[in-house]
């Protein structure tokens, strides 16, 4: 009895010893190798300007088997991309972790603290997250030929590039009102008292960007929001809630994104998209590759696929402006080149500098 217990114990300690020795030698190796690898990466980094042919990339990606994307892009778009991608590149799977922008950020944050990121590509709505990622060394620089077709929102360092452009507009329920606001500022007019809904700037990522766009770039300032508050604006959780509230008639007007109008459940809804006279709020949503990706080549292949005309056209079908200038705008929306002339484009540097301020002002006003 006793012997049968001691034996495995001995084995175990031997195993532990061997493991310890291995770890030691690996550590030793790393101590020497790390500076070399680091130097090599730094020297090699600018050279990743990728003209390597898609074919060669595909062959390498096939060996890795899959590309993993961390994203807040809606599921129905991801599913279409997956079918297209896997049909075009058999043998390479497209996997995604899809959640709200906030949860994707929380997961990246936690995985980074734990020491290992499990994604290859990140694509969230909030553009301001990327400079921070790049600063922390989380992103790889990767300029591809597709960049030439993207008119704006490109990081000079090559760490991220706009993949889609979300457009914030006013939704109006035509059954409830025919008196539409002409400008963003009109929303705070007394005649719309109790009639406006929007999402929370501290919960909804795109709303934070829209709020800073309206406060800073459109020059409406905080008095605009104070007036909205005095008029009893309904603050919902997120932008889709606003679309639902307007379509169902809960509130006749709301600040939300164009894409919801294109969803099946709003097809016959009495909803009209209004472009105020200052123009819509354009929000470039960038993507980037993780520096320590588990499937670097498959990640690159996916990156180039997402910037291809084929993948970008899927966005347009769903009411989102493609980033490429050679893919048509969503049906019923003016071309991007035209919209850009007259639009509110939030300044992301200002946003990053004023995050805390925007959040606390919002909290003081709306009680959270």
């Amino acid at each position, binding site marked *: 009895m006793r012997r049968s217990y001691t034996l495995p114990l001995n084995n175990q300690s031997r195993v532990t010893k061997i493991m310890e020795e291995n770890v030691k030698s690996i550590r030793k190796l790393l101590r020497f190798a790390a500076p070399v690898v680091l130097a090599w990466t730094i020297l090699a980094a600018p050279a990743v300007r990728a003209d390597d042919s898609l074919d060669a990339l595909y062959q390498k990606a096939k060996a890795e088997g899959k590309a*993993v994307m961390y994203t807040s892009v*809606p*599921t*129905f778009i991801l*599913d279409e991309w997956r079918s297209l991608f896997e049909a075009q590149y058999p043998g390479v799977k497209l*996997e*995604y*972790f899809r*959640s*709200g922008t*906030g*949860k994707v*950020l*929380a*997961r990246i*944050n*936690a*995985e980074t*603290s*734990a*020491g*290992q990121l*499990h994604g290859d590509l990140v694509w969230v709505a*909030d553009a*301001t*997250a990327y400079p*921070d990622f790049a600063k922390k060394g989380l992103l790889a620089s990767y300029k591809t030929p597709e960049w030439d077709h993207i008119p704006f929102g490109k990081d000079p360092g090559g760490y991220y590039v706009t993949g889609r452009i979300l457009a914030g507009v006013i939704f109006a*329920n035509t*059954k409830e009102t025919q008196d539409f606001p002409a400008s963003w500022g009109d929303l705070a007019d007394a005649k719309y008292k109790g009639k406006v809904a929007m999402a*929370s700037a*501290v*919960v909804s990522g795109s709303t*934070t960007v829209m709020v800073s766009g309206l406060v800073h770039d459109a020059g409406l300032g905080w008095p605009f929001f104070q007036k909205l508050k005095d008029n009893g604006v*309904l*603050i*919902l*959780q*997120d932008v*889709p809630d606003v*679309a639902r*509230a307007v*379509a*169902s008639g*809960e*509130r006749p007007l709301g600040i939300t994104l164009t894409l*919801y109008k294109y*969803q*099946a*459940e*709003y097809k*016959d*809804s*009495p*909803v009209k998209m209004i472009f105020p006279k200052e123009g819509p709020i354009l929000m470039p949503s960038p993507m980037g590759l993780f520096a320590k990706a588990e499937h670097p080549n498959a990640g690159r292949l996916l990156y180039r696929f997402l910037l291809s005309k084929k993948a970008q056209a899927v966005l347009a079908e769903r009411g989102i402006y493609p980033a490429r200038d050679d893919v048509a705008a969503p049906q019923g929306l003016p071309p991007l080149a035209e919209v850009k002339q007259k639009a509110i484009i939030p300044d992301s540097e200002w946003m990053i500098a004023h*995050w*805390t301020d925007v959040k606390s002002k919002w*909290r003081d006003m*709306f*009680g*959270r």
Partner: protein
Amino acid sequence: MRAALGRQGWFAPVALVLGGGFLFLSLYPYARLVLTSLRAGGAFTFVHYLNVAQHDYLLRTPLLHSLAVSAATALLATALGTLLAWFAVRTDLLGRRAITAFVAIPHIVPSFQLASSWIVLFGDAGIVQSTTGLNPFPAYGVAPLVAVQTIHLTLFSFLNVAGALGSLDPSLEEAARACGLSARQVLRRVTFPLMLPSILSGMLLAFAYSMAEFGAPILLAAPAGFGTLTTQIYELSTAPPLQFGEAAVLSLLLGVLALATMALNLRLLARGSFVTVSGKSGTGEAARLGALRAPLAALTWTWLAATSIGPLAALVLISLLGSWGRGFGPENLTLAHYSTMLASHTLTDALWNSVGLALGAAALSAATGFVAAYGAVRLKTRWGALLDRMSFVNFATPGLVVGIAFILAFSSPPVSLFGTYWILLFGYFVHFAGLGVRGVGANLRQLSVELEEAGSVSGLGRSRVLARITLPLLRESLAAGFLLVFVNAIKEVSMTSLLASQGTETLAYEAFLRYSDGDYTVGSAYSVLMVTIALAGSLIIARRSRLASGELST
């Protein structure tokens, strides 16, 4: 402790594996959370604690809000659950055997769904207003939040009290009657006091659940400018610039509050002895409601129908809706969203994942519940008490935070569970085991040790005493724990939406994703499927174990 456990035969290895496993799975991530709260930029610091202490919007306001809402919810849900349990087990109320199912339905529907249903029912131009022209309740605010949570959480006290009533020794009440007490006096002086551990246990669960709840507050109370600790934690962990250190501090505060309420509970219970169950079969005398029978039945069934069929009907209606804003008449209904759902290639996987993970977590939790309760109540080991406390702390920690702690602990070596079923299974187990532990512990406190001693005296070994006497007597509370964990795991989204990977999606997660895409109709179709499965599962579990049926088999 080892000596005490050693005599229990098979109990010792099972207790070591389950208890040790549970403690590792909860203490290691919890330690990572504590560590996070003490670090900033790689250095040791108290800055997160100072920040929290200095800002009212981080601490004082949300804390007071959370305490008020949770206390109100817990009191209401417990009063309601206890009353309904008494009706179901001890009276001749019409249709009393069906009550369990109707109390269970609003707990099976996820709380965020229940809150959405509330808005779609009672919001401006909502279902109620557009069909009747009336708008009886406000759509947003604190009152709707408390109402929705109360409806959602009545099941906790109901199951706890019904279980205890079912196994209560009727001879105590008979003796009191023989001494000349009226039926009402027996209820007040004998039955109710004996039920105290179970009543408090249900109340504690409702309180903790409400403290950790995110879906209902964010949808119903936040639009009224009313934030809670959980909405604050959510904001700190997801809205840039991320302040997870502060979020960790607030989560630890929730854990401390959980321990405090538990200590209070133990103090209340320390005053009396609640050993009542001697093993005699039978349920005692069914109270005759007499002249009140008809009106009470009408009242009870109106309430039960409104709180179960109401939200379910709203959910089904949304899943069939053609376009928003065109009314809820038959011309605007379609089955198209169900075809969209059925066409999804992840549906079958999600379905099996949901069922498998929920059953697995329920089995682990019920078994751990037994181990913890037996260890704490019978063997009086510190380990049993630690299991008991830790499981409750985990239950009072928001799912989002458990998810983040799990990523911190288990997403990279030495323990890498990333992308596997295990990370979800263990997450559910750690988060919900408290539901298995609390009820069993309360039940065991009421169970006289004499029966087990009698078993030993008549020559049964320890293992056999456990298997033949203790376990069968605990059947109801074990089944209740199993059922609660099953239902809560199958509908979980906060943690799942952080930990799920390709291939490990669940139905609730798929529904949640559709909701966050703004695809409410298809999301509701997924929810309908998930609720149907959870309901069928619960009915099977309840029937198999004759839960809350008022019959004790021996």
